[in-house]
């Protein structure tokens, strides 16, 4: 589960990680009101107004409505001691940023609507570094990665100068050991006060990642200030979906407006659904089969409208919900139901499909391929329902060809 930068920083700060001070705002008035207390609390006359969306590259991103405006803006007007000027500038920025659409390298061309801003204290940056905690699947352990190339996408660093990335594998029984944190801090070129703070930062960061069940914690940039402080200037945290049952505080941070409504609805029915751009809706059981159903549609010249795995324990009700979600997409010109019944019985799927068609109607061609447990019963149900426009398929490839032909 993804969360916003300001939420990530609050979670990290609560676990002893140094972050700048800031306030979240959902209206221009709130943004304006954040300025004075922030300047007074920190003694820093500079503030930064940052768009909060679930995507990176905000600084270099631009608003569709205001092509001259970036997603992150530094407000210097308060430097002469004129807090009112800083407030006026933040108000003007917030009025343009909130409710506008920010396009970054990670949002795709359609961009993301900015509904929250984070007004944060300005930081006197001396150095920009990089640190993250991620799972290394090949060893089944977390690794802490660090690089002196902060502010750049880590994938770019990995491609151009892989020697500038250092890694420490974490033994889950120990956590990040002291010597490992020191090795990383040395590799980052930290010295004096900053070295001790860096070691503490790295140790706390790894512990937080583990405590929070984070899929990923990325601090880019990690900054060293002129005064030798070590701070998370940005923070990206995503939490393991499977561990949310033990993190009620994190669940409360979920921002549904950042997610695709159809994907949210599907997840409420225990369906795994991902919207794509094509025209053929897919209803499949099993993740591997669902992926390869998309692949085979493309292989025979079509394009899939979605990934949909109804899972192993789906009921007629789930299947009906899945069917409705698929048919609601106006791009969908045809539907391919592809089921290999293992635990999932074919008659359950058949009943779900028939119930859904009766309920919502069928405006597009439908190809059904059933195989596996109770397949005969499933086929009888489908054929007995007499659904006009329904075509049966003998195997996956046959089904994919039929639906692609029917939608041409």
């Amino acid at each position: 589960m993804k969360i916003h930068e300001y939420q990530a920083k609050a979670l990290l700060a609560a676990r002893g990680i140094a972050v700048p001070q800031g306030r979240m705002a959902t209206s221009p008035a709130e943004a304006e009101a954040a300025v004075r207390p922030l300047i007074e609390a920190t003694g820093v006359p500079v503030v930064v107004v940052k768009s909060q969306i679930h995507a990176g590259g905000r600084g270099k991103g631009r608003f569709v409505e205001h092509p001259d405006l970036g997603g992150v803006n530094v407000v210097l007007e308060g430097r002469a001691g004129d807090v009112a000027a800083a407030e006026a500038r933040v108000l003007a920025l917030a009025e343009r940023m909130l409710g506008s659409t920010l396009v970054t390298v990670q949002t795709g061309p359609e961009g993301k609507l900015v509904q929250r801003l984070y007004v944060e204290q300005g930081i006197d940056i001396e150095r920009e570094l990089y640190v993250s905690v991620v799972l290394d699947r090949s060893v089944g352990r977390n690794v802490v990665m660090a690089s002196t190339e902060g502010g750049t996408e880590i994938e770019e660093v990995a491609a151009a100068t892989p020697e500038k990335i250092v890694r420490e594998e974490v033994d889950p029984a120990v956590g990040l050991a002291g010597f490992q944190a020191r090795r990383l801090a040395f590799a980052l070129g930290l010295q004096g006060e900053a070295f001790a703070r860096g070691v503490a930062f790295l140790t706390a960061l790894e512990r937080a990642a583990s405590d929070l069940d984070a899929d990923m914690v990325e601090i880019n940039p990690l900054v060293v200030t002129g005064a030798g402080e070590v701070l998370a200037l940005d923070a990206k945290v995503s939490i393991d979906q499977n561990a949310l049952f033990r993190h009620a505080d994190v669940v409360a941070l979920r921002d549904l407006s950042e997610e695709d409504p159809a994907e949210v609805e599907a997840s409420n029915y225990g369906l795994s659904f991902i919207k794509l751009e094509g025209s053929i809706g897919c209803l499949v059981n099993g993740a591997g089969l669902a992926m390869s159903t998309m692949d085979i549609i493309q292989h025979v010249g079509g394009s899939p409208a979605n990934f949909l795995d109804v899972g192993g324990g789906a009921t007629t009700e789930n299947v009906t919900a899945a069917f409705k979600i698929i048919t609601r997409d106006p791009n969908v010109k045809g539907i391919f139901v592809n089921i290999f019944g293992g635990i999932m019985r074919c008659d359950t799927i058949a009943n779900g499909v028939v119930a859904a068609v009766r309920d919502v109607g069928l405006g597009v061609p439908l190809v059904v391929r059933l195989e596996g447990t109770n397949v005969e019963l499933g086929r009888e149900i489908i054929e007995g329902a007499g659904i006009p426009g329904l075509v049966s398929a003998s195997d996956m490839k046959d089904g994919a060809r039929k639906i692609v032909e029917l939608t041409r």
Partner: protein
Amino acid sequence: MSRFVDIHTRVLVQGLGKVGQFHSDRAIAYGTNMVGAVHPGRGGSHHRFEGESDASGVPGRPARYAVDLPVYDTVREAVAATGANASVIYVPPAGAADAIMEAAEAGIPLIVCITEGIPVQDMVRAKRYLQGKATRLIGPNCPGVITPQQCKIGIMPGYIHRPGRVGVVSRSGTLTYEAVKQLSDVGLGQTTAVGIGGDPVNGTNFVDVLAEFQADPETEAVILIGEIGGSAEEDAAAWIEKHMTKPVAGFIAGTTAPPGKRMGHAGAIISGGQGTAAEKIAALEAAGVVVAPTPTDMAAAVQQAMRQAGIL
């Protein structure tokens, strides 16, 4: 003789909830030698399983079965009482990693964890716990392992399997069933089918299973079914190139998967441009694996690989 499970395997089930009961019943119907159950709090009781035997399972059994499976509070007690040498886990996600560790601690040599949705960090710790122990973990988030007509551990439909010549290893449940049914339909059958699971941290990987199939005299060819995410397929390709003398066919799901999205399985995600289907297919083909263009062609790919090797 199979490398993972056979007619002599003595199986314990951990987690006798609805799912555990249903699949234990199916396993007993198939003829799997289920010797006990572990369900904390229900120790000392028995759970009755009865019904019609699965005709596709172990041959030479009566038409009906009736078993009173003894239930234990702990795996250690269950092992002492039954001599179990394998365990299958249906414990819900929050307790599944603990169940894996309990089974390993009790000295069970083969643990098959079916549970989907275990927190990644729980598996990181469980995997660490297994280090240095003589226990093999298969899964989690997998269909299980089956040697046709000898032993079925897991949730796969037994009747699609036939004893035969091909070893099947896969990250996906339903794609395993596709491959198995095709292999049965063309008369090749299976020696053993192993689902290694769709999670990012698992116990047994492609390379481990390939090594077992390579060493198994009955396995003549192998099909490996992978998907996007991670580098297990690339590791397998490297191993095949170096060590595998038997023909290998393959299939990779997720050619059309968008980057950064988890495709159903927790481990099926292209992140930072890594783990794409194209990379995996290229690695396997470079290692001489016949990669099926679609799942419908999986048995055909095995046949082609076997013909190229002169064994078909």
